[in-house]
């Protein structure tokens, strides 16, 4: 050994079988589903560690790309390695440069994957009644969740909403995965004309729901949490904040969340989320640092 050749004496968490991996993945397929793209990526080792609610961060372009920041996507499905390598599936809404680049990939293209990331949905220990509410591509992580809930003898009632039928994801699959399915579209092209919170109060009452899981736009999460809280149910929300690193090192992805000690802190949604107890998120204060937040001049309690 020459001087300066560092010798690793300690195993990293990834080597110890926990935490996220960084994998040079290969696109297996890209399929159009309504307005979305369903990507299946061969990325060994990620499936075995994934739990519903985790996400992956994908790099855009090759190693000279001018788009440096990774893009975050909820994990829709995973398959552990079998005859083929393990796969990760995501649902992409193409709008900006990163999502458009991903949507235009072909079989065998390379995509670097970091994951699984973030805290997954908390699962009930008892066989309770659950509602799973998804907005647009936000339904993607709910199918794996429904499966886990039903393994625990919980019921899983799904409410899926979108602006139009083309933006509704997984309504057909929901029929298989869920105990019941309710669909809403803003334009009325399919299901109830309206938004997910329209049928939600009745559904929560009829099935005596204990836990409401939700994933979708922030406005929807806020509204769903308020309906759930009124009904006396727990709510678990998967939020979407702009992220630069996805792994907890940059502090860009923060939002104000109240801790068990009643103090509001700016917490990183990539590592302490993306799943939060809905009633702990200061939805009204997102995009601000509300007065009294820990680390503003005087830390104080929530009024």
């Amino acid at each position, binding site marked *: 050994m020459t001087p300066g050749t560092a010798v690793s004496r300690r195993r990293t968490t990834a080597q110890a079988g926990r935490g996220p991996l960084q994998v040079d993945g290969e696109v297996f397929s890209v399929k159009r589903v309504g307005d979305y793209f369903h990507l299946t990526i061969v990325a060994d080792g990620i499936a075995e560690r994934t739990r519903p609610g985790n996400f992956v961060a994908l790099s855009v372009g090759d190693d000279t790309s001018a788009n440096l920041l990774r893009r975050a996507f909820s994990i829709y499905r995973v398959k552990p390695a079998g005859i083929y390598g393990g796969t990760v599936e995501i649902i992409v809404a193409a709008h900006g440069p990163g999502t458009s680049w991903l949507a235009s990939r072909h079989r065998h293209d390379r995509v670097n994957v970091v994951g699984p990331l973030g805290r997954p949905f908390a699962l009930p220990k008892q066989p309770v009644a659950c509602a799973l509410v998804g907005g647009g591509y936000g339904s993607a992580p709910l199918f794996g969740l429904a499966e886990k809930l039903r393994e625990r003898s919980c019921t899983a009632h799904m409410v899926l909403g979108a602006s139009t039928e083309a933006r509704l994801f997984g309504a057909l699959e929901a029929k298989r995965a869920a105990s019941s399915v309710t669909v809403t579209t803003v334009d009325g092209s399919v299901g109830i004309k309206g938004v997910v919170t329209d049928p939600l109060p009745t559904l929560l009452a009829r099935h005596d729901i204990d836990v409401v899981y939700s994933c979708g736009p922030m406005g929807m999460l806020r509204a769903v949490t308020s309906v759930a809280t009124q009904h006396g149910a727990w709510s678990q929300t998967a939020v979407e904040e702009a992220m630069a690193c996805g792994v907890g*090192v940059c502090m860009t992805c923060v939002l104000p969340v109240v801790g068990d000690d009643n103090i509001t802190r700016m917490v990183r949604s990539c590592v302490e989320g993306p799943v939060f107890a809905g009633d702990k998120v200061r939805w009204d204060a997102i995009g601000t640092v509300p007065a009294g937040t820990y680390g503003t001049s005087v830390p104080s309690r929530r009024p």
Partner: protein
Amino acid sequence: MTALTPADVDLTTVLADAHLDNPVMTASGCAAAGQELHQFFDVSELGAVVTKSVMRDPRSGRPTPRMAETPSGMLNSIGLQGPGITAFLARDLPWLLQHDARPIVSIAGSSLGEYAELARRVGNTPGVAALEVNISCPNVENRGSVFACDPFQAARAVAAVRRDTPRGVPVFAKLSPDVTSIVEVAEAVMEAGADGLVLINTLLGMHIDLTTLRPLLGGGTGGLSGPAIRPVAVRAVWQVAAALPGVPIIGVGGIRTGADALEFLLAGASAVQVGTVIFNDPSAPRRVIAELRADLAVRGFAKASDAVGFAHRSTPGST
């Protein structure tokens, strides 16, 4: 020069009183305090881990959005969110030491008294390889003007830190490129007692959102970083190395590969830091070490230190 095999290259680096296995570090604010990156590679393999600038008190930082992607870079306006020095010393620094990492602790103050207090508390903690002084902060005692933008104020902050840091713990001053003459600031902080320099911090920038027709970042302006700023950083290293020969310089700004790191060594940096590119590739700091080793070998440099400042030498035969 004849090519060597990468394994034959000696990467050991001396920066004032700090002796490092290799010249590659993380950049402050891009690696937190090492724990998250340790999921991807062993942080003890790095020359040093430079921690996120810590202030005396806990800080909530700025409102979101805190970042915008820009061509080959990004803008950030984090506002130095952090746990404060007490929590840092109780939790983060011990973790780095337990994992055999060499910590360089970045400190940031909003007054001279705060810099001095941080210097005492960090400098007296065993195991700290060096202090990095982030002077790109507003001075509350001087109408909020940024220390780094005025040679006199910059020197006062650095002097306050040096005075209260034990001998044997080197103090590096990190300079802002947003000044008329970076050489002038470099001279002032070296005179104030700095043991070396870190060049450069981010450049002030802005992005306007075409949907809202307003600045996108919660803080309005933000710091520009990433490969887009690399030529600015190389220029700063070059100018300061030329004006102050022999001063230890740590180069930072847009380093993505070993070749980029080598460019900084040739310009006069003895060590380098990898920042924004970590967000693209969390294993980047370790990858850069291996690539730098190979890039030095190909060019026949037996030691990393042989490449430091090489670009300043006149070409053989020229006058």
